[in-house]
């Protein structure tokens, strides 16, 4: 059953999934709910980000393009609700909510993996066209230090990168994603979750 994003039920169920998955110790796979929860916690605790983002207003969305061969069969949107240095929440959200974000940074799983491994600086990636930014550019340029810090934090959280997963772990990653898609994102996965 698909839950309706924005309802208390959606949030409670999402938190339940995070709590359940977080029973296993890290490292978690990037862009899974449990990894996103760690990312949220890290942003909230980061003093450098708080200072750099003290004037920031608006949401930032990390968009991961599908990569079916590696177990991601749909567009994934990590929505960060940010306000004046405070991180209100970070969630994996349905496409409609993701596309409604104030700023959307898009990239392939490989590009985000490069960012996570610090092989690609996010600003450099945008300059090279490897990451695409949608949103009011002057606003994000004014807050470039905060934006850079967010990507630094994502790297500091660490974890397992989907492109590095051994082939026998990809079906499990696909299963996790498809379960998430059907329950929380309103997506009927091409490969059934169960």
């Amino acid at each position: 059953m698909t839950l309706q994003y924005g309802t208390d039920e959606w949030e409670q169920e999402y938190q339940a999934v995070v709590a359940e998955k977080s029973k296993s110790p890290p490292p978690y796979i990037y862009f899974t709910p449990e990894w996103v929860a760690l990312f949220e916690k890290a942003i909230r605790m980061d003093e450098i980000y708080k200072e750099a983002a003290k004037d920031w207003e608006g949401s930032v969305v990390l968009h991961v393009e599908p990569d079916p061969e590696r177990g991601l069969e749909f567009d994934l949107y990590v929505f960060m609700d940010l306000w004046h240095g405070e991180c209100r929440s970070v969630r994996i959200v349905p496409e409609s909510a993701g596309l409604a974000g104030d700023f959307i940074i898009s990239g392939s799983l490989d590009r985000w993996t490069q960012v996570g491994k610090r092989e690609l600086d996010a600003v450099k990636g945008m300059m090279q066209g490897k990451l695409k930014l949608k949103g009011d550019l002057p606003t994000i340029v004014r807050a470039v230090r905060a934006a850079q810090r967010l990507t630094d934090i994502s790297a500091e959280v660490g974890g397992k990168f989907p492109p590095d997963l051994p082939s026998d772990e990809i079906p499990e990653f696909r299963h996790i994603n498809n379960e998430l898609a059907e329950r929380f994102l309103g997506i009927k996965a091409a490969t059934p979750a169960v």
Partner: protein
Amino acid sequence: MGEPETEAEMEQATTTGGNGEVDITLAPDVGDAGMAVMMAEMIRTNLKDKPDRVKDFNKLDGYVWITADDADTEMTMLFDGGSLKVYPGKVGYPMLQISTDSSTLLDLANIQIRFGLPYYFDEVGRMVLKKLLKGELKIKGMFAHNLALTHMTKVISVK
């Protein structure tokens, strides 16, 4: 309407007319050149937000070449007294040639404008000057085309 695909659509997508907006076009071969697309979009939005700087835009006349060494990417802006065309790579004979890393380029866009002039005495301004002195930021033509540099700084400054 989807993403522009043809040359005509690409031009249409960024050309503006009336409503006090400026005329900015992307060369058809810009394609996925992130920095060129970003710079064009940033100037367009910036001037819409700060229409008092359109007069600086209108005074610019000539080529400006910018390269982000660390990103191995370059672009040329051709200002033509009220219009701008953005090209990937190096085109023409630039009056200003700016060479630095991608992060410093965004610092340049964060220079404060005070009393109508770029202000170099705050944290960002001092950092830019320091990089200039250390050779981490190179601006060829900055003395010969000092006024053009001032106009361009105002056009790209989001502050």
